[in-house]
């Protein structure tokens, strides 16, 4: 009986964190039912994840921007512009991919710092500063594609980023339907996760801190392992892991680590929670603004690369409304507009929720007009849930 009580307690304490997962599961279950299983098919899930990629990386960056009580509206067209620059660098300048990508990401950092400059130095609202960027990059896209119009990219390596999958072991004949390397990576991930959890539990026990009861701990391990195994299995059924998913996982991994484990992450959240207190605690608040906007610019560049690669071309309208999708994903994922609260993992779930809605409703051939209305309703419902659980919270 104590097991059930433990479970209830853990669920109650973490309702906010698990709420998003539960919502995602519900949405997926509903669409699976209404589409007679097409939604959950490996092909559709794989597509869904690849489509989420370029919004997901933006949502990660936007999370931090909103956490420090700012906003960046310029990211959509900045992504489109830098995607176009990448295309030009590949097609006209004939630069290799391994130079082009760092180059545009570097440009992205610079662009982010330019947006941050008036915000940090002059106290201009970021809404205005980034709205100016929105206009400027919109114009810049048109400018660089003025003569060519849409730029077709033929570089195979570049296009693989948005469309390709990681290679499989050659010459293995068992399980012909499945992608073996993906399965192996999934297994490695599960093992690493379990080892890490056990290690951290041991560490806590060495300090005599409270830890989950053994039953709860085992349940958590089993649950997460099964979840990873399921996702791996589904993906392995259709070409395996795509490069997009690998990139998103890397970005999320790095940002999750930085925000939760490092001094920089602490400073960012403290500044979001109370800027005056952060400054009086010796934190260089201006530097944090540059770092967060610079990272946002870098991720915009990455988003632009993912999108251009997916379309195998740079178009004149690339990046339209990306910023609003990213902001919506962050809010659905539990970021607070009041600052100081929000996780990058939450925003990724938020992005998945929004994209699942689009994908599922497309499969059900629901008209685009209704799709917008449903997504709007989900956005506001998610935020209401968030605020309600927060005020009653802990």
């Amino acid at each position, binding site marked *: 009986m104590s097991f059930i009580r433990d479970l209830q307690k853990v669920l109650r304490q973490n309702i906010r964190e698990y709420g998003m997962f539960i919502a995602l599961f519900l949405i997926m279950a509903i669409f699976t039912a209404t589409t007679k299983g097409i939604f959950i098919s490996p092909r559709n899930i794989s597509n869904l994840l690849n489509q989420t990629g370029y919004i997901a990386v933006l949502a990660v960056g936007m999370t931090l921007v909103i956490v420090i009580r700012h906003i960046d509206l310029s990211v959509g067209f900045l992504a489109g512009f830098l995607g176009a620059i990448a295309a030009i660098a590949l097609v006209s300048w004939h630069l290799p991919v391994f130079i082009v990508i760092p180059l545009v990401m570097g440009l992205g950092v610079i662009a982010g710092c330019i947006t941050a400059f008036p915000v940090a130095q002059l106290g201009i609202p970021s809404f205005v500063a980034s709205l100016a960027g929105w206009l400027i990059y919109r114009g810049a896209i048109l400018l660089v594609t003025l003569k060519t119009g849409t730029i077709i990219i033929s570089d195979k390596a570049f296009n693989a980023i948005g469309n390709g999958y990681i290679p499989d072991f050659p010459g293995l004949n068992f399980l012909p339907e499945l992608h073996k390397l993906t399965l192996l990576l999934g297994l490695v991930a599960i093992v690493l996760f379990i080892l890490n959890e056990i290690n951290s539990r041991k*560490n*806590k026990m*060495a*300090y005599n*801190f*409270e830890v989950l009861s053994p039953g709860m701990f085992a349940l958590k391990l089993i649950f997460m392992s099964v979840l990873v195994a399921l996702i791996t299995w589904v993906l392995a059924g259709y070409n395996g892991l795509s490069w997009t998913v690998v990139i998103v996982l890397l970005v999320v991994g790095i940002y999750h680590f930085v925000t939760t*484990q*490092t*001094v*920089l*992450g*602490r*400073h960012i*959240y*403290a500044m979001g*929670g*109370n800027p*005056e*207190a*952060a*400054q*009086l*605690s*010796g*934190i*260089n608040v201006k530097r944090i603004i540059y770092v967060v906007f610079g990272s946002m610019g870098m991720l915009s560049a990455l988003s632009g690369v993912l999108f251009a690669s997916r379309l195998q071309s740079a178009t004149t309208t690339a990046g339209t409304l990306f910023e609003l999708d990213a902001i919506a994903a962050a809010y659905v994922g539990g970021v607070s507009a009041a600052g*100081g*609260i929000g996780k990058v993992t939450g925003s990724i779930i938020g992005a998945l929720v929004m994209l699942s809605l689009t994908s599922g409703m497309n499969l059900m051939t629901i008209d685009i007009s209704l799709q917008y209305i449903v997504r709007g309703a989900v956005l506001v419902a998610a935020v209401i849930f968030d605020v309600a659980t927060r005020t009653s919270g*802990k």
Partner: protein
Amino acid sequence: MDTPILEMKDITKEFPGVKALSNVSFRVAENEIHCLVGENGAGKSTLMKVLSGVYPHGSYTGEILFNGVPQKFSSIRDSEKAGIAIIYQELALVAEMTVYENIFLGNEVKKGLRIDWNETIKRAGDVLKKVRLNVNPATRVKDLGVGKQQLVEIAKALSKDVKLLILDEPTAALNEDDSENLLNLLRELKQQGVTSILISHKLKEVIEIADTVTVLRDGKTISTLDAKKGEVSESILIKNMVGREINNIYPKREKKEFGEIVLEVRNWNAYNPVLGRTILRGVNFNVRRGEIVGIAGLMGSGRTELALSIFGNPIGYQIQGEIFVKNSRKHFGHPSDAIHSGVAYVTEDRKGNGLVLIQDVKQNITLANLREISNRMVVDENLEVKVANEYKSSLNIKTPTVEQIVVKLSGGNQQKVSVAKWLFVKPDVLILDEPTRGIDVGAKFEIYTIMNRLVSQGMSIIMISSELTEILGMSDRVYIVSAGRIAGELPIEEATQEKIMQMATN
């Protein structure tokens, strides 16, 4: 005896855990200038908020008679309708609007649905003449000095046909000429039949202008003094204001041994570009190892500004002067510089700029010194919990776990978290700004005990406080700040409440 225009009888107002006013009686005669004086926290502002309806009828007990009629104001609108206007220290003008727009804001002159601007401007001109303010009504308020802005506020009140004008420390931000002007205006208004209540810390001007003075202390009416009978003098006022006993809520320190000078500030001047005035002038002070130095002074005298300007100047004052830490000259361009040199500052406003309320106890404690618990910039969260638990037990912070978010703690425990945060940077000099504001007596005693322990371990403490008894009970030496200057320095043996109050109100 004159007929009273206002009578407040048996007013009692309680806040959770504090009795701000207990059975206060306050009587203002028609056509007089009545001054209300008392220490910070004596209840003056609370009493005026009860009167003006900021605290609505029902949230206090007692009776208010205005012109002999019982009143039940439930908002400022009600009291304004009755003819009472209150002007706060922080002016309630819209800086970007013109003088005439401000004067008739919320009370617009209408012709049908439209605002009659011509009539508005004409009436604004009339009422500006009444307050002797010679400016174009179309001037934007932000282009006027503070003194003139104050007159605009008064004009706004007069435009509503006010009978009783309340001014809350109107001269605190004014220079001498502007103050004199204002006082003259009050006298003139008296001739025209307007009664005024003036809250002021400046006893000289109180003596100069008051017909009657009411003294409040600790939420009680202490005395009502009549100037015509010669009852109003500086010594009587001070005696009435401070007459509190120092009881034994201050723990004794066993041994007092002072070492070398740890922090010294010389010729310190600061100019606030936003307010456009000099806020600190020629300040010199020092603190020795193992010493508690008290900094006394009234609210707005520049104590907090002094602390902030030393602690890395986060607000961006223009500063001249020198700081020495352990005899070496320092320049603090950012709070982090001050922290690295061993200076820590516990703010007076723990909720506003002290704590990150949505974060938990441990995160707040380690925030100013995360490097200490980090390995190559990666925070060791287990070590963090351990550190936080050590402070939890040594400062007796009452919280179920160090993972509790700070907003859920009581004021006293929040203050301890604030102190813990700054102890964790291991400073040589700890500046405590109003260390016991808004916390209960038990928690106060604990904070005092912690302070004594710290200085006996060799730390130096600068304690800024509005509570004179606290200054006298805890300090080894006292500086008195008045109008941005050090008005005096007293060894604790010579310091008395009267002396300090005299220096502070000069």
